[in-house]
């Protein structure tokens, strides 16, 4: 029997790191704020002040660790062509249903593996005529407790390689995929390299693609100009994104190391950088302070450090010289999309046809960018409907239809 490098993983942040964080929080130096700034200038001072105080006295990281460790977590070595071996961290929860559908869940930035937490029980549950899933939630290289690549050029093909190898190493010759944020973009890469052969169908909660041009898709370009509600929303969100939402993205994609210094050294800096997105990208999600602090702590205590996580923007865009879909092409692998109203960009639905063969669409009236976290039941329900009996992607994984 082949040896495996899989090891169970227990999160246990060393006391020295906890002490360092504590000391830094005690020495925090907060800025002032303009009168009535609200959210107009970025994360409000009163929020950050309150969160820093809680982080310093009150937030119990050990309690979080204990809860997180209830998730079945592992690490294993994955060899990536040209990049050597990366030790990858992941959650792997099998369903009691033997023929459950293997599903790879992929997070983005500023997300992480814990985003699967709320949706996990729904997906792995046994419930009558609804399919069940074996769920693998990976920490992207450079995020959470996965190692980061040591050299430049780790992009779409490499991520796809890691994902596919991980699933194969777990015994899942065929599998399905769910992602949002980078999970969506990387989905296009995995499907391009391993679609049909291994990746049988995929689902995204972030309906994004490159803008159609008159040359490439004339009919689709017209759709934006139609006097429909959908077109209006699409244009509004895109305009807002381009003008006001793109600062972090541009910095990440051009100078990740520069911004990385502040994010590594200042807990308050890291907190605000991420908290701003947790709030503005979610749909009125009632974040508790401890929920936020746990989320940020994962970044603060991440194996490769917060600066490493930013590099994905640079690598996937060639330093902002091309878009994130470079190196992919449309495939006929079945694709499902969930539309959540609070998502950052909501292009016309026809755009997703450029990405793949859309077989499933679902529209919701609540939920934002962090769909799996904010609306786990809705997302789980979408996946069940897509992959369950009578669904458009039923039985895509041979022998693993989701029912016993």
């Amino acid at each position, binding site marked *: 029997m082949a040896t495996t490098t899989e090891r169970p993983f227990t999160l246990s942040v060393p006391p020295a790191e906890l002490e360092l964080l504590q000391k830094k929080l005690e020495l925090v130096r907060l*800025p002032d704020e303009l*009168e009535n700034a609200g959210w107009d200038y970025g*994360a409000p001072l009163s929020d950050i002040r309150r969160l820093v105080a809680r982080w310093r006295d009150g937030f119990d990281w050990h309690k979080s660790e204990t809860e997180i460790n209830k998730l079945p977590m592992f690490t294993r070595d994955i060899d990536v062509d040209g990049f050597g071996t990366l030790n990858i961290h992941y959650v792997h929860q099998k369903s009691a249903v033997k023929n459950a559908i293997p599903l790879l869940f992929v997070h983005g930035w500023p997300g992480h593996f814990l985003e699967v937490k709320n949706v996990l029980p729904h997906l792995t549950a046994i419930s009558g005529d609804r399919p069940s899933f074996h769920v693998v939630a990976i920490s992207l290289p450079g995020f959470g407790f996965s190692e980061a690549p040591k*050299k430049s050029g780790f992009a779409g093909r490499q991520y796809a390689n890691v994902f596919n190898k991980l699933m194969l190493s777990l015994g899942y010759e065929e599998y399905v995929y769910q992602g949002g944020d980078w999970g969506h973009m990387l989905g296009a890469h995995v499907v391009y390299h391993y679609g049909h052969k291994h990746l049988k169908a995929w689902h995204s909660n972030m309906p994004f693609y490159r803008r159609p041009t008159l040359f490439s898709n004339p009919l689709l370009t017209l759709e934006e100009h139609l006097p429909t509600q959908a077109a209006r929303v699409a244009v509004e969100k895109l305009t807002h994104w381009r003008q006001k939402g*793109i*600062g972090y993205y541009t910095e990440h*994609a051009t100078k990740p190391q520069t911004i990385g210094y502040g994010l590594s050294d*200042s807990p308050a800096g890291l907190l605000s*950088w991420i908290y701003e997105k947790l709030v503005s990208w979610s749909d009125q999600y009632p974040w508790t302070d401890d929920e936020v602090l746990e989320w940020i702590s994962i970044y603060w205590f991440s194996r490769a450090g917060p600066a*490493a996580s930013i590099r994905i923007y640079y690598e996937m865009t060639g330093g902002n010289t091309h878009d994130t879909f470079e190196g992919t092409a449309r495939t006929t692998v079945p694709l499902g999309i969930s539309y959540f109203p609070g998502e950052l960009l909501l292009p016309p639905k026809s755009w997703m046809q450029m990405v793949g063969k859309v077989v499933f669409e679902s529209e919701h009236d609540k939920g934002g960018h962090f769909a799996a976290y904010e609306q786990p039941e809705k997302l789980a329900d979408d996946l069940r409907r897509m992959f369950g009996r009578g669904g458009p992607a039923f039985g895509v994984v041979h022998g693993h239809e989701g029912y016993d």
Partner: protein
Amino acid sequence: MIAPAAEQPFALFVPDPDLALLREKLALARLPDELDGAGWDYGVPLADVRRLVARWRDGFDWRAAEEAINRDLPQFTRDVEVEGFGTLNVHYVHRRSARENAVPLLFVHGWPGSFLEVRKLLPLLTADVPDQPSFHVVALSLPGFGFSEAPKKGGFVHKQYGELANKLMISLGYDAYVVQGGDWGHYIAGSLATYYAHTHVKGWLSNYPHAQPPKLSKSPWLWLTDLVTPYSEREKEGWARTKEFRARGSGYSHEQATQPQTVGYSLGDSPVGLLGWIYEKLVRWTNGYRWEDDEVLEWVSVYWFSRAGPAASVRIYLEMTNRFERRAVDGIEWTSIPLGFSLFAKELNQVPRKWLRTLGNVVFESEHEHGGHFAAHEEPEALASDIRRMFGKGGPGFGVVPGKDGYV
């Protein structure tokens, strides 16, 4: 009503507890890793930051730097009222020439610059040398920078910067004056021209050639000539640099113009973060300038110890561009007072020359083979020479300030 504080001499002195806090933070510095062979591709190289942090922690002598700053730069503060914003206490350098009729000149810095940028220019401009014009020099710390107070509310834009700077000059007895600026200093000089051309501002020289293309509706002749005249090699090169800067060098400005408070938390809390953020510009925006570590640390320390804190300084991007909804340069109106440009080889924004004429009556253009964005710091002799040539005898701006032509 409390009378606004008259001029007070200012001696830079950072309280001991602030020095201690900086040292403590530096002792706890947590640095990231770096990709193999990253160089400058991903931002500031780790080796540079590591070395600078170590020096900042043990070796760099801030008190000695303070002493030298106080010795080289005669500084003051005074209250200036700005309509709708109350009173702001403004910090500035002021040195008069020995020559009574020296030309009053206001020097305006930008971001991540400071009043320190006038340091090398000061002796050159105020010198009393025969056959050479002399200047009385005022260099303010912009509100929210250096040791000036910051505005307390939003909306402090072109008009307010103009009002503040103009009132400062008048309060110093300079009813008429000329202006020199780069980076935000370019836009503020342009704002001063917009609101006070002829009445107070008599001419301006910018080393940051940023302007919008001429519009058919506003300047048809310029639009037409721009359309049909081929660009020179230098203009083409400059434009390529401009596009490269916009595509790959302007992440900081996107963030600062949209979420200044968010990035402000790390700039205010982490000396390492602040160092990385500013040092990147000091190196990338200069042209072969050999920075000494202590020079860099002094520069960044001014931001770290600034009166309003580093976060306040980046708000100018949001205010002046109205959250990136418009270009800062759109706040400048064409005036007929003499306008000059000092064009340094590796400046970031280099637009075709004709575009500059949309900003004013361009009477002086001086091209340099050296220098970059921080002209006053990198090429003080060249910039001082341009200032003298523009405003001195035989220059297109000679005698613009009545009774103060710069000579005996």
